[in-house]
């Protein structure tokens, strides 16, 4: 089997991770226009929850994942009630400044509590190593990641397309004022969506540890990639985030394999081409 499939596989896995980290931000930005640059701080929180539960309390890896989700979601609810609520009508720049302040505080706190070095995580042995298939090696962890992300994607799409809640979310994203006019409780809806999005980010953070490592600067490092996915995919669109994450993940891996000299910048080039072609994103509102 030609190595291009191996590269595609890795690209898809990386893309799935990016999707989990970004989908929450895309929906909340699309719905409420609230620029939450602290989104990756929730991801970082999820990661550290997993690390603490596994290393300090000896929990098995799988058990920590739902807790990472819930912890990040809970933290976002607290922050939303306490802070963000008052800034929905503030200017974009103020929202940026507020959330950057929160990022700084979260990075310093993480450094203080956990120290500045890498957090190691001992995965169960069946998640390490790889399966050989048709001459290529497929890493177990990446298979697991893809499976989990696909499951979550299906759940999300089912929720959005086939439930009342999902219909309300779609309405609020499309036209907030009309949705309010129809009696939809947009604020409450947003609180729930925000919590879900942050929870997913937390889950993404927990899953990311094994693939890309966890340290206090995670909140900043991944912010750029998340912003790229969100802007290329289009605000408020789950399919957009998915498509963008796949595109970016695969082009990143393919670029690094075939042309390492420009591999690092391919993701930025792709982003710029996509945005210039579709300024509002692949599936964004026009």
């Amino acid at each position: 089997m030609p190595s291009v499939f191996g590269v595609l596989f890795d690209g898809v896995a990386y893309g799935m991770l990016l999707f989990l980290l970004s989908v929450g931000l895309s929906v909340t930005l699309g719905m409420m226009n609230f620029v939450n640059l602290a989104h990756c701080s929730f991801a970082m929180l999820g990661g550290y929850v997993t690390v603490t539960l596994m290393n300090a309390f000896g929990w098995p890896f799988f058990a920590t994942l739902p807790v990472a989700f819930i912890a990040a979601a809970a933290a976002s609810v607290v922050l939303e009630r306490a802070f963000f609520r008052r800034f929905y009508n503030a200017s974009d720049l103020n929202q940026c400044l507020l959330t950057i302040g929160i990022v700084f505080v979260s990075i310093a706190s993480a450094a203080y509590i956990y120290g500045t070095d890498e957090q190691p995580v001992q995965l169960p042995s069946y998640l390490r190593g790889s399966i050989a298939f048709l001459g290529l090696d497929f890493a177990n962890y990446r298979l697991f990641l893809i499976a989990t992300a696909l499951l979550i994607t299906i759940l999300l799409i089912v929720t959005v397309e086939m439930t009342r809640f999902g219909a309300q979310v779609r309405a609020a994203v499309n036209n907030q004022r009309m949705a309010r006019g129809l009696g939809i409780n947009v604020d409450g809806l947003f609180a729930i969506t925000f919590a879900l999005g942050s929870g997913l980010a937390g889950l993404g953070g927990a899953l990311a540890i094994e693939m890309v490592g966890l340290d206090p600067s995670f909140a900043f490092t991944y912010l750029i990639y998340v912003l790229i996915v969100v802007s290329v995919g289009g605000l408020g669109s789950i399919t957009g985030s998915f498509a963008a994450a796949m595109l970016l993940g695969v082009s990143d891996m393919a670029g690094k394999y075939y042309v390492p000299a420009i591999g690092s910048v391919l993701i930025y080039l792709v982003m710029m081409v996509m945005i210039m072609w579709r300024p509002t994103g692949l599936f964004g509102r026009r």
Partner: protein
Amino acid sequence: MRRLTIAIIAITAAGLAAKTAAAQGTVKIGVVMSYSGQFADPGAQIDNGIKLYMKQHGDTVAGKKIEIVRKDNGGIAPDVAKRLSQEVIVRDGADVLAGFDLTPNALAAADVSEKAKKFMVDMNAATSIITTKSPYMVRTSFTVPQLNETLGAWAYKNGLRKVYTLVSDFGPGYDGEASFQKGFKDAGGEIVGAARYPVANLDFTPFLQRAKDASPDGIYIWVPGGPQPAAIGKTLKELGVDPAKTRILGQGELTQEEALKGMGDAGLGIITAFHYDYNHDSAMNKAFVAAYQAEFKRNPDMFSVGGYDGMHLIYEALKKTNGDTDAEALTNAAKGMKWESPRGPMSIDPDTRDVIQTVYVRRVEKVGGKLVNVEFDKVENVKDPFKARMKN
């Protein structure tokens, strides 16, 4: 105007001298390095090394009290490094500059050391040319060519003929690539391919896949400390690279303690060249590690030992000059100094003011259930080859 400026400097210097004299014999050491940001951990380890030395040897040398003034560089920022070095001399009255975890910062500060005539101790930054930038600078860490050229020559001597090199896409990576390739090619080996990965890269699959596809006898990897070494180890295992068939070579950071913890058994068999490991079998090192553990609840690493030996150098130099902090006097006292460090024997080259030490070749093995670097070969009294060639 030039004379007026010199006059101003002279008057303020005199004022400072008066101030320091009035301070009843204190020697202030300005430590400039990253205490925050992505290089905070190395900074913390260097600082621990400094603290431990002072705890063990007291804070008085040759009748003078030693005081440490800490300044945070916050990562790669040479303009900040220069400013902080200037400030620590001008504002805090520092007599000695120390620290410097990153090359651009060390190079910028070297300027200050030269102009203000202050003794400077580079406790970490490892690019060859750094010590040439100020006549009052001494280094106590290592240089990249020192380790990697030695590894290249060793690789050939031990049977490898075709090697693929993969390094990080920035200065120290290029240094590693150039040094290893030179050492290996000069001995007669062939480099079958070379690539560079982006500095912030986190997923090594495409790069290592390419390396594997080139079917070399060995893959040389240069990577800085942080999350990357563990990722590399894990990816190698995932791709089915067998260290017994394809040797994996690198500089010590590839198999540092936290890297091994992160990559697990995937690291078995990786060969690295380095100047310090906390498992080094000497009485002095065992005592050092025990004291370090007791004080800081973690093991020392090469950063710690750079800080520790840096302080040793300062203390011994001050003893020789009887407390005189004149840059020239301290530099002359430091030249040729030889001592036993936790890493092994080391000395300061009188010509280049750089460190001469033993380069250990280690392999990752499981000892007592733990993964450690076992030193199985060494090359002694290695000078920095880059500067040695510069002179000829």
